[in-house]
């Protein structure tokens, strides 16, 4: 039994404009000692889903269904009081922007000690000692002195270290890191990623890392889930996602990032169009309006996330035939454009996709809620 097992999780928000389907039926699991990377663009539902695990999306206008089984208990069936004992104790979370995520008018020691005292019978002095110990553990020099500092007196990297110290103060079984390095410089990012990896092996925690950066997950994740418009469209071991991906959106992501590990003259292949509105999802496969390999049936049928016949750990939600997909992927790797690949493998001219259709989406709200 996995530590965290999510089944068919849906998070819908009722808004004045309609129902925002921020998360629309996702399933995944993580074991202790393992790292799951959730990759997606803004509005893909990656942040909402993980905040729902923490019970942070319980709002009046949120409708949540499915199962979140953590350590044998369905968190969605828990009362607020029960959930509070899990939050920050068994499951901890770190956020993207450590400056705005730390309280500006309390010292770091104070904030970490508070996290300790919520879940433990500890005196103020004991909690403070624990805070100092944690600050030292995450590599903050002179932790006893620095515990008295306020967040604005720290650099960005140091703040994120303090945030991690706070998250790990109660030895959580699961750490959720929501874009933990996005606000940081690249050398600091490397420090933080290394810290997360080191602490994970020390604490034997499960880690869910949410990011838009494929490079980050390539370095730290064991398994990757690619999210698009509230769904997981592909889920597999890290090598599989990078070397034999099966979903056209994953191909698109890999093709649109400038990479350090390929010859420079390789052209970027942007994904045409833009993510759909979560209020008004397109029928059929959500990706079909942007998919270069779309066929008529894809506009009507919604593909389920299914394991590959030859690799049960590799899940894909795509209506294309598996053999066609593999041929397209090898065409793309050989340097052909999506249009050429389509012509060769499907035998039809490519669909007309406006590079960037001009209606502003109402999508991103789901992420903020």
């Amino acid at each position, binding site marked *: 039994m996995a530590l965290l097992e999510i089944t068919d999780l849906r998070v819908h928000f009722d808004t004045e404009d309609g129902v925002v389907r921020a998360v629309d039926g996702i399933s995944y699991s993580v074991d202790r000692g393992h790292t799951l990377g959730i990759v997606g663009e*803004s509005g893909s539902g990656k942040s909402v889903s993980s905040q729902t695990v923490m019970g942070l999306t319980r709002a009046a206008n949120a409708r949540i269904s499915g199962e979140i089984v953590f350590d044998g208990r369905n968190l969605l069936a828990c009362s607020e009081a029960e959930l509070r004992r899990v939050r920050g104790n068994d499951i901890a979370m770190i956020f993207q922007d450590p400056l705005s995520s730390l309280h500006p008018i309390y010292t770091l020691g104070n904030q970490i000690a508070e996290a300790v005292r919520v879940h433990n019978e500890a005196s103020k002095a004991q909690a403070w000692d624990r805070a100092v110990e944690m600050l030292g553990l995450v590599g903050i020099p002179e932790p006893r002195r620095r515990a008295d500092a306020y967040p604005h007196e720290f650099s960005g990297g140091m703040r994120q270290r303090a945030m991690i110290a706070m998250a790990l103060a109660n030895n959580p079984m699961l750490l959720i890191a929501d874009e933990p390095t996005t606000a940081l410089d690249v*050398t600091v*990012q*490397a420090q933080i990623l290394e810290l997360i990896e080191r602490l994970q092996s020390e604490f034997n925690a499960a880690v869910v890392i949410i990011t838009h950066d494929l490079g980050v997950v390539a370095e730290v994740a064991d398994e990757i889930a690619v999210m698009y418009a509230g769904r997981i469209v592909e889920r597999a071991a890290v090598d599989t996602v990078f070397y034999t991906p099966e979903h056209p959106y994953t191909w698109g992501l890999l093709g649109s990032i400038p990479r350090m*590990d390929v010859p420079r003259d390789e052209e*970027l292949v*942007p994904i045409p169009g833009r993510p759909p509105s979560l209020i008004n999802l397109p029928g059929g496969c959500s990706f079909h309006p942007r998919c270069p390999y779309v066929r008529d049936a894809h506009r009507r049928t919604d593909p389920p996330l299914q394991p590959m016949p030859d690799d049960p750990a590799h899940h894909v939600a795509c209506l294309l035939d598996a053999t066609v997909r593999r041929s397209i992927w090898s065409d793309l790797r050989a340097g052909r454009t999506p249009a050429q690949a389509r012509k060769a493998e499907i035998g039809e001219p490519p669909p007309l996709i406006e590079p*960037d259709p001009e209606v502003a*989406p109402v999508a991103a709200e789901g992420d903020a809620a």
Partner: protein
Amino acid sequence: MTKETLLEVRGLVKHFPVTSGVILRRQIGAVQAVDGVDLDVIKGETLGIVGESGCGKSTTARLLMRLMEPTAGSIRFQGHQIADARGRDLKALRRQMQMIFQDPYSSLNPRKTIGAIISEPYAVHGVHCADGERRAAVQEIMDIVGLNPEHFNRYPHEFSGGQRQRIGVARALALRPKLIIADEPVSALDVSIQAQILNLLRDLQRELGLTLVFIAHDLSVVRHMCDRVAVMYLGKIVELATNEQLYAHPRHPYTGALMSAVPVSDPRLAATKKRQVLSGDVPSPTNPPPACRFHTRCPKAVPGRCDTDEPQLEAKAGGNLAACHFPLTDAEVTERVPTARVAS
């Protein structure tokens, strides 16, 4: 190809004063945002300026644009000194240089139609005065940057982030400037949209023969876009090289550390790399370390040399200009920077 220098920067310095005092405020120090930058921008090239936050790259951009006054140094644009230009000279200069900003949301006036936004430079500079002519000119530019020219009368909020950045590009192009300075033009955009804008800039640069100064923190984006790259650290250029030189064999240990730190979208390559993690933080630009500013964090620093003797920007093996007494060897590069093994 003749190399015509469009912009020549020598000894560029920008210090922001820090003051204190009971009645009379006196200057007690300065944030040395940019401290002695020499740089040439060659006509038709894309020059990248890369560095982490606080390295002075954005201040440099604003100085080049003359959006702020340099503390010292000279900036020559096509041979004319512009470091102290004012009034009419400055206005004339603005026709030749334009800027693209990071945030496409806050840099567009929400109460103006995009036609008005793009044609604003015309009004300021009195170009294309006739109404029909102006509209035609704007629509031509909208077409060039991939916006539907019929959407002339729409407002910024009706467009997505990627398209707003296209509007920003169109506005910068309106006067057909010789030089465009793009300050982190894609870092606020989603991955799939980023590629659209990068391709647009690259195509425009090729087709219109633009000269582009491209400022970014993302080394892979810079590698994709630029012909030459300057790496900045704490207000100084530590390495300056062609794209091929820089990414195949970085010579400055800071450049090496930056490249080593960039996550690689290739799990096997990532696993083999010996990640070189720099310790500590960037020191304060108010009180930068003496001599080589990187020596406090440098894995190769030699006490008694690097902290006393400031290295100059000089040619090293392979042709890179680097300001370092002990540049990286090829062996060190291969170990730390796996991407260097990829043929550039």
